[in-house]
């Protein structure tokens, strides 16, 4: 969101009245040099003890279905560790989840975690939904189905005209529908197609389309199937470019070219400006002379 400081403009008007000699008449602001550093006292950690780095990443990945603690505690311990997982731990985490696939008590505890944390900690719930989806068993499928069917809030805290609680649940349902598409059972596929046809959220429908295609290897048959259920004004979602870990620059750029060629409506209109483009490009040329920031951050340890 962008504001013009009306108050500031008003103040300038007042000051120009009080100080008739003040040079405030220029239409464009003068170019500014690097800002002076704030005359501020530096921050400190004085009022609370300095946290000792808790480098829990060094901890081994615990079992999701551990035998030394109750299921709920086992799930909580695993979610905490999985949440901080590095990129190269992805396969190890997946392997642990697969080992817990047959444990009904753990599946139930995980499902309960998803529903219990969803309004308290968004990112923890995202992680729990990811594990639940990867679990790929009947209990997880039932829980994910219930989750994507939860009604979206129509009232709540308004942010930029939208209900914040609705956005939060929509984003969580986007994650949940990935798990249903990954399950790939007859019932889960049917639920994904139902979401695509009937879910009230456009972002959830869009994610369901992408997840369905991904789990059917973006095949022509899968695209044909989707065309039977997708909203007529959402067929474009079937053609969206996507970036997977194995996608190369050439692959992605090829996808993008086909996307733009198939959907000429994606072309943005001519730009609008306050002044002549040529004047602006001169400013851009001037800007090229601005040196890069010279205050370097400390070297990463």
């Amino acid at each position, binding site marked *: *969101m*962008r504001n013009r*400081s009306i108050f*500031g403009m*008003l*103040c300038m008007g*007042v*000051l120009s009245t*009080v100080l008739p000699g003040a040079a405030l008449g220029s239409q464009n602001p003068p170019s500014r040099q*690097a*800002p002076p*550093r*704030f005359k501020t006292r530096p*921050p400190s*950690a004085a*009022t609370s003890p300095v*946290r000792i*780095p808790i480098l829990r*990443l060094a901890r081994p990945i615990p079992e999701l279905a551990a035998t030394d603690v109750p299921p709920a505690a086992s799930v909580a311990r695993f979610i*905490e560790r999985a*949440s*901080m997982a*590095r990129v190269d731990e992805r396969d190890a*985490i997946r392997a642990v989840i697969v080992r817990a696939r047959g444990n009904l008590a753990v599946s139930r505890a995980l499902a309960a975690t998803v529903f219990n944390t969803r*309004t*308290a*900690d*968004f*990112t923890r719930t*995202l*992680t729990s939904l*990811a594990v639940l989806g*990867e679990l790929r068993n009947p209990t997880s499928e039932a829980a994910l189905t219930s989750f994507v069917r939860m009604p979206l809030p129509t009232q709540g805290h*308004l942010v*930029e005209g939208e209900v914040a609680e609705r*956005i939060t649940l929509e984003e969580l349902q986007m994650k949940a529908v990935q798990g249903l598409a990954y399950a790939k059972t007859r019932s889960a596929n049917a639920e994904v197609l139902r979401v695509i046809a009937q879910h009230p959220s456009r*972002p959830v429908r*869009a994610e369901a389309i992408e997840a369905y295609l*991904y789990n059917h290897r973006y095949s022509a048959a899968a695209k044909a199937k989707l065309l039977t259920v997708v909203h007529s004004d959402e067929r474009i979602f079937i053609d969206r470019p*996507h970036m997977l*870990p194995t*996608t190369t*620059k050439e692959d992605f750029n090829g996808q993008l070219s086909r996307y733009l060629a198939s*959907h000429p*409506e*994606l*072309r*943005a209109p001519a730009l*609008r*400006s306050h002044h002549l*483009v040529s004047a*602006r490009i001169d*400013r*851009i040329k001037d*800007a090229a002379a601005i040196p*890069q920031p010279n*205050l370097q*951050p*400390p070297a990463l*340890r």
Partner: protein
Amino acid sequence: MFKHFMKIVVLAAACILAPVASWASTCDESGASSADIDLWNTHGCWQAFYNWQYQQYNLGSDKWGSDGWNDACNVNKEFPKMWNAAYLVTYGLADNPNQSFHGTTDYRQLAEGPNSNFKDAVYYAPTSDTSIYGSFTYHWPGEDEIDLSCLLFEPSDSHSNPASRAGDFMHEGWHGWLTEGDWNNGSCGGHYCGPDGDCSWSGCDYFYFHGIGAYAFGALWQTDGTANRFHSPNQVQVEFLCDVSDQPQGWVPQSVRSAAAVDADYRAVTRFINGPGYECGEPRPW
């Protein structure tokens, strides 16, 4: 005549005293999201970094004094969450020329305080206004202002994580770029009024599609003056979030990457008039 003079005096006094009001800004400091804690645990409160960051992002005790300025190692507070997100911007991207949309040098210059190719100088302040996520305010004279809403710091909101918070740095910073170039991006808070076309929000942008490698790292600020080479605030935000999700450093926690992906994918299908942007992240649950 005297009454008119008094009105001017009162208004001038208000101009001088107005900054004092910003001292009251305080958000819910009862906790931090898992993603904030996970990223925090990779640095464990790094004093040298936050002593660099507060200068480079133009943060001051006048704006952040009641928001963790003197409790810089408490991740429940706003200033620590602010510099946690800056840590992600500064170190967290892989800068892979074969898969990243843009590079760390782009995102740093766009987010940080000093005057650069991207924008005039800015400073950051927290705001208790929760009808917005963030805002950019042009000031003359003086540095421009980026306000960050409490929603970016309170753990129950989906945007209270380092990736989404940093994504807001990019979005608001890009309003600075538009202002610097005198571009007209619409009359609804620097966006086109919506809903419109494929955009379901009140503030909408166009997506100016480009491939990987179309912009060398460091060249995000460039335009040829046409829609062929241009960006909008939401587009820059989506591309940053995609780069966090798909091209992070190996140590960036899963919770941060996952939050980035879902924010990008939600935004890509709700904020653009001319159609949905790219899909980021592998749509497999884990």
